[in-house]
């Protein structure tokens, strides 16, 4: 609110200031009108003679009315509650947040227990488990990117490139070399980490926005190579028929090939397609948990501490004898490695990959998971991934409004939790009574 307005409010003894409300609401309505006229007002429709323009001025009017009334109510509420309004950040969300991170250990343990038991629960049908493993891919990617963005503070907009490298590594290794999933996994991780270092070198001297632009470009370069290197990657047609992972050599198929034993035969079960889905679910759960434990552990080691120090202050880092080159490259490499693992899993889960799956929007999605969750917060990533990946899946009926809801949610987060859902940072070391540094 402008200072003048506040002063007037105080003078009016907290009464309703009608002219102010009308002015604010009118201004908002005007902005909405300007936006809604081209977006809602005109619509191209197929007709006999080609395209025709249809007009939907009723929609425009509705949008303007909603904005006007909404803004008027907001201003009125603020006027009335002005004096008692708690300082920003002390709202319900903040208090809930504080209670939440006091118990993160328990909440985390409960979440893991729930995740392990999920496929056994009565409501867990094929669809639920499938969504859950899709969700866990993003949790894992979020945790991986959290190393780069959350811990080391390097804004990476091309993270999907490493995901793509991992996916193509497995797809091509299984296609040409006949490597199994378990052999390809370390290969994919190593290749992705190599690409991470490759990206790291040219951007060593860049920070902030400039770094973001170059990483964005890197992501696009990888995708464009995948599209155009037809002889190697099969271009936009992608690679299909990627081998499914086996359970220690036991295939998940109704009728295994000669000399093979199927999973259901070995364990004396009836064949059910859900076995494979559940196996894939446990696979990604395992991979994601490895990512999480690794990150939690490395935060307490010198390299993890150096990442966080780099995020806080690069100059101070240097003057303490830390080598920024190594810190940045290790962050890029390790973040990329986890994306590589996740990419392999993605390839084996889908059985088909194409450059379509690795567009910029994926990078943006993963980054928004990290930012929304609160940079550096592991549990925040889970919550944000749920909000960004699973909720839109549930609200499929909304169809075209999904993105609208998504955008609105983002704006609300920016207003109420500008530093992410879980902005709290746990110290990595505590001092015990004896003066001994522990943990």
């Amino acid at each position, binding site marked *: 609110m402008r200072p003048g307005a506040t002063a007037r409010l105080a003078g009016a003894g907290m009464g309703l200031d009608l002219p102010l409300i009308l002015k604010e609401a009118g201004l908002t309505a005007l902005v909405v009108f300007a936006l809604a006229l081209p977006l809602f007002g005109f619509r191209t429709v197929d007709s006999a003679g080609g395209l025709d323009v249809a007009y939907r001025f009723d929609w425009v009017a509705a949008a303007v009315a909603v904005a006007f009334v909404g803004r008027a109510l907001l201003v009125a509420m603020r006027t009335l509650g002005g004096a008692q309004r708690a300082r920003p950040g002390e709202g319900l969300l903040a208090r809930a947040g504080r209670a939440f991170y006091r118990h993160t250990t328990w909440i985390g343990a409960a979440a893991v227990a729930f995740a392990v038991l999920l496929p056994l629960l009565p409501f867990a049908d094929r669809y639920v488990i499938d969504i859950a493993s899709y969700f866990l891919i993003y949790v894992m990617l979020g945790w991986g990117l959290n190393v780069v963005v959350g811990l080391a503070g390097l804004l990476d907009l091309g993270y999907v490139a490493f995901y793509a490298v991992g996916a193509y590594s497995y797809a091509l290794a299984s296609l040409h070399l006949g490597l199994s999933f378990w052999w390809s996994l370390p290969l994919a991780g190593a290749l992705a980490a190599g690409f991470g270092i490759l990206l790291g070198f040219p951007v060593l001297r860049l920070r902030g926005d400039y770094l973001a632009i170059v990483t964005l470009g890197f992501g696009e370069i990888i995708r464009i190579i995948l599209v155009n290197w037809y002889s190697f990657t099969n271009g936009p047609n992608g690679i299909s028929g990627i081998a499914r992972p086996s359970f220690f050599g036991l295939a998940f198929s109704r009728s295994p090939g000669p000399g093979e034993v199927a999973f259901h035969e070995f364990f004396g079960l009836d064949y059910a397609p859900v076995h494979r889905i559940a196996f894939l679910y446990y696979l990604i759960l395992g991979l994601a948990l490895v990512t999480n434990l690794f990150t939690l552990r490395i935060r307490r080691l*010198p390299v993890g*501490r*150096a990442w*966080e*120090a780099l995020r*806080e*202050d690069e*100059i*101070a*880092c*240097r*003057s*303490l*004898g*830390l*080598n*920024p080159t190594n810190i940045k490259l290790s962050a890029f490499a390790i973040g990329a490695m986890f994306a590589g693992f996740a990419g392999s899993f993605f390839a084996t889960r889908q059985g088909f990959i194409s450059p379509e799956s690795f567009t910029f929007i994926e990078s943006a999605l993963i980054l928004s998971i990290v930012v929304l969750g609160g940079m550096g917060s592991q549990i925040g990533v889970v919550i944000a991934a749920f909000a960004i990946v699973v909720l839109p899946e549930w609200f499929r009926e909304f169809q075209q409004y999904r993105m609208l809801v998504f955008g609105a949610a983002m704006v609300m987060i920016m207003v109420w939790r500008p530093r992410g859902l879980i902005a709290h*940072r746990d*110290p*990595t*070391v*505590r*001092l015990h009574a004896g*003066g*001994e*540094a522990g943990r």
Partner: protein
Amino acid sequence: MMLSVTGVHTFYGHIEALKGVDLEVGAGEVVTLIGANGAGKTTLLMTVCGNPQAAQGRIVFDGEDITRLSTYEIVRRGIAHAPEGRRIFPRMSVIENLQLGATIGQPEDFADDLERVFLLFPILKERREQRGGTLSGGEQQMLAIARALMSRPRLLLLDEPSLGLAPMVVKHIFGVLRRINREAGTTVFLVEQNAFHALRLADRGYVMVNGAIAMTGTGRELMADPEIRRAYLEGGRRDRA
């Protein structure tokens, strides 16, 4: 000589910030560099640390030419730097800040070193779990010095430790600096605008004007010099405000 700077020129783009600086710091000494805002004091300290690197001239530490080394290599040779504006890690706890200070030290020395800096700055022990950003200005400065000491430096570079602090706190910090020098034998090179405290503490001092050394002498000599008194002690006190 522990540190000798010979004919050093440093540029920021086209601007020549240091115009041929000669300066020496002997082992076990406290040497201060005073001068007005923008004289190039901080630039000299940063140049010793290799960021930016000197365009001309030589910087020798303990007989080794460090002019072309990068910052982290210089620090690993036994120079610690408490940079201008303190630059502690605000979201990290006091302990974590100190842990980062011990980056180049041996892990088994950590507990001893911690004990040592807590003896120098008992307030930091009380505040050990607190985030760096929530400390007061004076405590942050103490943390910056303590963090620098964690690497067991032979030469401690300090950039305006008195900046923005209450006189009582400044007095306390300078007292601790004296102890660090007397008891641990750490050589201290101190850049200051607060000429009064700096010259009282220092064995020797240099005065920098416009990117070059204008005068040098013992702390007592410089304090007695009428020109210094006028420029940095009496008039200076008003300028500093």
